[in-house]
């Protein structure tokens, strides 16, 4: 077996056409997860009655099981649930008319929410208690103190962690292929098996992922530098 260097470029052009799906599968779950994660983190920090039990269970389950399993459970479980409910209330919704990507997005969003909630929680806890006390001392209520003083610092300090999760989810989006979503790894598989050039196709896919990751890291570095400028001391 020889390696066909030129075919890497052919595969590259073919695979990169699936980039939009990969980006959707990465960015949407992270945005949804951002909201879920923030809510869950606050519920757990403030130990909100009843809800904090649910939040604990949610985080424990979704961090305690592989993401591929969430996709499977939701892909096979939700249609069953939706059809049952639809039948019961006569809603006329048919699960097989729902695009598969919605199931994948749901599963990934729930996973992202669980991981991000821990990042938010650690970020919030890392802001010193004195900041909260100072906010109270100037007459803020808990909500103002949280949104104006604590969260901005917590989020700024969590940027490297957010980047980590972004990169993780960029790569995790590849498992959507198992429920026949044609994102980049799926595209690589197809190019590989139709041309019987596996090594070349996956080298091409690998290069694209790597490139995206480098771009993400670069952006993150710039944003972090700007967002945490307050913490660096020194003289202007």
């Amino acid at each position, binding site marked *: 077996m020889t390696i066909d260097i030129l075919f890497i470029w052919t595969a590259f052009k073919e695979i990169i056409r699936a980039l939009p799906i990969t980006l959707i599968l990465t960015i949407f779950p992270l945005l949804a997860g951002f909201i879920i994660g923030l809510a869950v983190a606050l519920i757990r920090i403030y130990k909100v009655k009843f809800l904090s039990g649910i939040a604990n269970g949610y985080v424990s389950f979704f961090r305690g099981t592989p993401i591929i399993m969430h996709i499977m459970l939701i892909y096979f479980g939700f249609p069953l649930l939706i059809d049952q409910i639809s039948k019961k209330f006569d809603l006329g919704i048919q699960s097989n008319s729902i695009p598969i990507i919605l199931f994948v997005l749901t599963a990934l969003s729930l996973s992202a929410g669980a991981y991000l909630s821990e990042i938010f929680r650690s970020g919030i806890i890392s802001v*010193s208690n*004195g*900041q909260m*006390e*100072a*906010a*109270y*001392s*100037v*007459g*803020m*209520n*808990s909500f*103002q103190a949280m949104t*104006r*003083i604590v969260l*901005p*610092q917590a989020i*700024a300090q969590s940027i490297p962690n957010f980047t980590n999760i972004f990169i993780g989810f960029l790569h995790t989006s590849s498992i959507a292929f198992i429920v026949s979503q044609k994102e980049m790894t799926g595209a690589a598989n197809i190019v590989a098996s139709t041309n019987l050039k596996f090594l070349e196709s996956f080298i091409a896919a690998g290069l694209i992922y790597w490139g995206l990751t480098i771009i993400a890291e670069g952006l993150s570095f710039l944003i972090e530098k700007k967002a945490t*400028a*307050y*913490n*660096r*001391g*020194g*003289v*202007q």
Partner: protein
Amino acid sequence: MIYLKDIKKSFNQQPVLKGINLKIGKGEVVTILGPSGSGKTTLLRCLNFLEKPEEGIVQVGDIQVKSKKATKREILSLRRQSAMVFQHYNLFAHKTVLENVMEGLIVTKKYKKAEAKRESELLLEKVGLGDKHNYFPSQLSGGQQQRVGIARALALNPEVILFDEPTSALDPELVGEVLSVIKAIAQEGITMVIVTHEMSFAKEISDRVLFMDGGVIVEEGSPLEIFNAPKEDRTRQFLNRISRDFSVSFLEERAN
């Protein structure tokens, strides 16, 4: 102005305040002295409910709160009667010096931004930081940070300013600049409660000195009475310990 009745507070069943009664009049400058663990900081923090007393009544200005059934709203309006200067400054780390002072004006006093800015600039001028508006707290020395903390407290125009050991985290050479700012505002007739270990400062600035030990106010009086003629043994022992340099040299002299 300030009225405390039978304030009790404990941490892990360890009583820290054992029933404090206190009245402070408008414009009075009161310092609280005492060994560490005597409950002086806790008492100060009870005044704005950063510590919630288990029992007793706290009144600042017109707002009276019964500790046992204090609602969130009551605590908020009690807090808005006072401002606090912290031992570790606790400036808002992600905000510039100017924003730190403006924050309270905008959020709680509902000032317009331009108005808050003008007011804050005046106050920063007053504490000698007119040239540091756009610095972040991390770029300032401890003494400068604490002066920002004082400006932030002054901006609220509160009934009372609470000082929690405002100079004990500072390098010795920076203590002076902070104390002189505090002295200047004391002369303006603002009510102040100060927890401090700076004896000569306390002597100079206070209208009244409280000496606390073991969760109670052991003795109170004018600076002259407390420093020159303390009635209680515990006060005397404390003052001796604090001015050990003096006593050591005194003992050495005697030994010779």
